[in-house]
């Protein structure tokens, strides 16, 4: 059913159709509208058979989710940014215990300096926790991925994060085909747990494991991700059959035929990249792009194949690995084991900095001329950076960097 609604609302309505039995949440921008929406639906009775728990913190939220999931309930939560960091210990536990919780991340930067806007630092910080991480290009895909996420999580007994860009998607009104309850019911079977805490058949979950078997148990986490590599495209195909649209999968190529330069990215910047690609293709500039939906497991083979004919690869990373470059770029390089291509890392869109089509077109042309640094910061105000560096050189007690930079800008920091 077509609706013009906010991305968060589309996700809330879709999650509700997956019939979660326990939702626990602690509010944090920019995911708040999702759990608010679900809370209203539980209260009004629109979402029946579901317990909504307000908890005292994000650590509490995921801990309650772990307990609920271990007791056999289909369990959902959502968070972002510092909230995900505060959950960190439970994030690893949920994966280590193999509990199929689905969690939305409204991707947001991590402080300091505090910043409520979008980048991928939060989910990237948990990329090796053992959760499956799926990134949505659009609000349609964000909604659809939740249905697929429950199916994938429960089949493999592995938790899944659905990552959607904060504000850019969570707060945007778009035209969305929200599925019907009977469609979701027909596609998503009730949760049949692989392990369950049941007083009638007692087991313990969460044994201590020493060096004699720890590696083996950890290997199983890797094995599960490898299984997910097979199941993610299959589930996406089954979704296409039932719902009539493409959502999810490992990655999505765009005009890569004959492209000498291919751009790789995650999430909502994909649309703007495709517009830039179209503009350049119209001028016979042979560029293409791929967007990666499944960041964990990382589809090494599929990425390698998609990039095999390109001369160079430009990776747009919406998170910074200080002292290295970008995390997505590092993973893409691993997919290009023969190293015949040049890989440019472009750090972009940090803390809500707009990534414009105009900047991307310029960037891709520079890449084609091999005029990029191996790590490039898109639209960085170098004068501002250099003035702070000189202040630090000139004075020992030069003061806090963030405050100095804002003062230098004369900032009312409200520009787009």
């Amino acid at each position, binding site marked *: 059913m*077509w*609706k*013009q609604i*906010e991305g968060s609302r589309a996700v809330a309505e879709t999650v509700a159709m997956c019939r979660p039995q326990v939702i626990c949440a602690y509010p944090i921008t920019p995911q708040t509208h999702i759990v608010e929406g679900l809370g209203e639906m539980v209260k009004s009775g629109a979402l029946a058979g579901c317990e909504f728990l307000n908890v005292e913190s994000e650590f509490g939220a995921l801990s309650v989710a772990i307990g609920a999931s271990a007791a056999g309930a289909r369990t959902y939560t959502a968070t972002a940014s510092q909230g995900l960091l505060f959950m960190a210990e439970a994030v690893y536990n949920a994966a280590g215990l193999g509990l199929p919780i689905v969690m939305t991340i409204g991707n947001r930067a991590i402080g300091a300096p505090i910043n*409520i*806007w*979008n980048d991928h630092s939060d989910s990237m910080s948990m990329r090796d926790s053992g959760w499956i991480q799926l990134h949505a290009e659009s609000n349609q895909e964000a909604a659809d991925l939740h249905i697929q996420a429950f199916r994938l999580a429960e089949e493999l007994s592995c938790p899944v994060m659905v990552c959607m860009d904060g*504000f*850019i998607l969570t*707060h*945007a*009104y*778009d*035209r969305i085909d929200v599925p019907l309850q009977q469609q979701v019911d027909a596609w998503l079977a009730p949760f049949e747990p692989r392990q369950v805490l049941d007083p009638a058949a007692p087991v313990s979950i969460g044994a201590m494991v020493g060096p004699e078997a720890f590696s083996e148990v950890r290997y199983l986490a890797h094995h599960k991700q490898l299984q997910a590599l097979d199941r993610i495209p299959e589930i996406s195909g089954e979704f296409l059959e039932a719902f009539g649209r493409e959502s999810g999968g490992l990655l999505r190529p765009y005009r890569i035929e004959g492209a000498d330069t291919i751009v790789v990215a995650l999430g*909502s*910047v*994909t*649309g*703007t990249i*495709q*517009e830039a690609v179209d503009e350049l293709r119209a001028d016979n500039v042979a560029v293409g792009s791929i967007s990666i939906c499944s960041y964990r497991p990382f589809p090494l083979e599929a990425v390698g194949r998609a990039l095999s004919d390109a001369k160079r690869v430009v990776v747009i990373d919406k998170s910074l690995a200080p002292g290295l470059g970008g995390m997505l770029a590092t993973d893409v390089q691993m997919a290009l084991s023969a190293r015949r291509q040049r890989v440019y890392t472009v750090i972009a869109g940090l803390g*809500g900095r*707009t*990534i*414009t*089509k105009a900047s991307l077109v310029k960037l891709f042309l520079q890449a084609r001329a091999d005029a990029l640094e191996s790590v490039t910061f898109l639209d960085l105000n170098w004068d501002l950076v250099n003035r702070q560096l000189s202040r630090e050189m000139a004075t020992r007690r030069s003061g806090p960097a963030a405050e100095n930079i804002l003062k230098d800008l004369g900032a*009312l*920091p*409200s*520009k*787009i």
Partner: protein
Amino acid sequence: MVSAAEMLSIAAFLEGRYAQAFPSFGSERMGAPVMAFCRISDRPIRLREPVTEPDALIIQDPTLLHQAGLFEGLQLPGGYVLINSSRSIDELGIGSYVGDHAVTVAATELALRFVGRPLPNSTLLGAFAAMTAELRLESVLAAIRQKFAGKIGEANAAAAQAAYELISRSDTREKIHVEAD
């Protein structure tokens, strides 16, 4: 402000078009200038950057008129400017910036009269529909009723309709000045 962009996108959706509305990603604090954007198209919208070259600019708070760069990206000639003000474009002294399709409407006063609160969103959308003929009044009213339930929705719809009629009645779309009374 944000709801105005959202309602605009709903109105376009109701006419079978694609629309995207989103807030600006700048600092949010009480009293700070706030922007919201809306794109309307006959094709799916992929672009996710803020609108910097608008075909239409709706200014809710006329105290922002002298903000540097406000009209910078406006697509002229032909771009529409709608300002919430009881003064005319000439009185505001901005004729040279805004081109020929500029209108003021006393939206806050109309909102006070119909809704009882100084919230000009719906009123401005009614005026916008009349000014640009980009959207039908019925779609705007339906979007308002979708956003605000019950009596508040009806009051907002009445304010929008009044603004629509005021603008439509004016003989020329150029540099007209519409007062609440």
